[in-house]
């Protein structure tokens, strides 16, 4: 379950520690080292073979295409099937899109972190970014949306309901609101989020690698 109560209402410029916590300043890297499972996902201290793609991004829209390209190359290199690569590239870019839209980047040092880990039979996509002073509203909405999606037994039903809701809005309303539910449905992913001590928001999506989706 998402946790947003810890967030303090203060200007994001004061939050220099909320900038990206790991990874190089630009570009991405493949990490094929074995290692511990990311904490809080498969349980702290769990040991598993881990393969990861880590990127530190500036909040520019064209970086999203870069994420998609590198995600596809990394997953191809890991031997995943095309349909899973397509789905995870979508999950990655939708999460990064949200990060770019809702993150706080007033401080030029603030950046966004993208991590993709393969842990045994799961793929974990995580996007972390600094939050802004009006973050409480966004986090409440994020929490509501995630809980709403979880209320459906089948994410497809959630997707259909969202399509109907969005379709009824005025034609010039630019708000989509389809990203998270698409991640749950098309990406077959479980979405979660938490706010770290430095007030950075971490949103994650975990997808299982079904039998037959390794090449």
């Amino acid at each position, binding site marked *: 379950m998402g946790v947003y109560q810890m967030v303090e209402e203060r200007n994001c410029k004061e939050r220099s520690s909320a900038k990206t916590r790991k990874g190089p300043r630009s570009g991405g890297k493949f990490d094929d080292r074995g290692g511990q499972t990311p904490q809080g996902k498969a349980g702290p201290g769990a040991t598993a073979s881990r393969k990861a793609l880590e990127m530190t991004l500036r909040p520019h*829209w064209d970086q999203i295409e870069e994420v998609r390209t590198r995600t596809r190359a990394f997953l191809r290199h890991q031997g995943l099937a095309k*349909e899973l690569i397509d*789905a995870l590239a979508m999950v990655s870019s939708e999460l990064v899109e949200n990060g770019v839209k809702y993150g706080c980047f007033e401080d030029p040092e603030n950046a966004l972190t993208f991590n993709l880990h393969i842990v045994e039979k799961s793929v974990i996509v995580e996007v972390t970014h600094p939050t802004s002073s009006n973050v409480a509203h966004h986090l409440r909405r994020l929490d509501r949306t995630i809980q709403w999606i979880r209320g459906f037994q089948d994410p497809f039903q959630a997707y259909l309901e969202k399509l109907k809701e969005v379709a009824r809005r005025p034609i*010039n309303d630019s708000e989509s609101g389809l990203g998270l539910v698409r991640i749950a449905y098309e990406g077959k992913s479980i979405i979660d989020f938490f706010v770290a001590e430095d007030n950075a928001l971490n949103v994650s999506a975990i997808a299982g690698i079904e039998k037959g989706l390794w090449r």
Partner: protein
Amino acid sequence: MGETRTFTNNSLEIKVTENEDSIKLTWSGKSIDREPGKFISPILLDIIKRSTDAGKRVILDFGKLAYMNSSTLTPIIRVLERAKKGKNKITVTYEKSLRWQEVNFSALRIFETADQRVEIKGMAR
């Protein structure tokens, strides 16, 4: 072959081909803009108006589209919703063998009408 016009925005291309009985929009490339509706909505609204005036069917062909972000669906489903409640004839076609297209576009069947005025078709090319 009817009149053809092509609209391009970054990596998205929409080719509009008008024939005697239909106006076909062939989508190709990627739709990855922050607000894709700014480019897509005016084209769709213009085509819908012209098709209404001329009594033609609008065909939205997504088969060659390589990728779209979720914001791209917004103007499309709003047009389908209006067509469902109105009198327009719209056919959506997509590439059935591409999973991402199948899962996204087959869901649009909720906008289909019993008289096939609005129809969604998965094609195998």
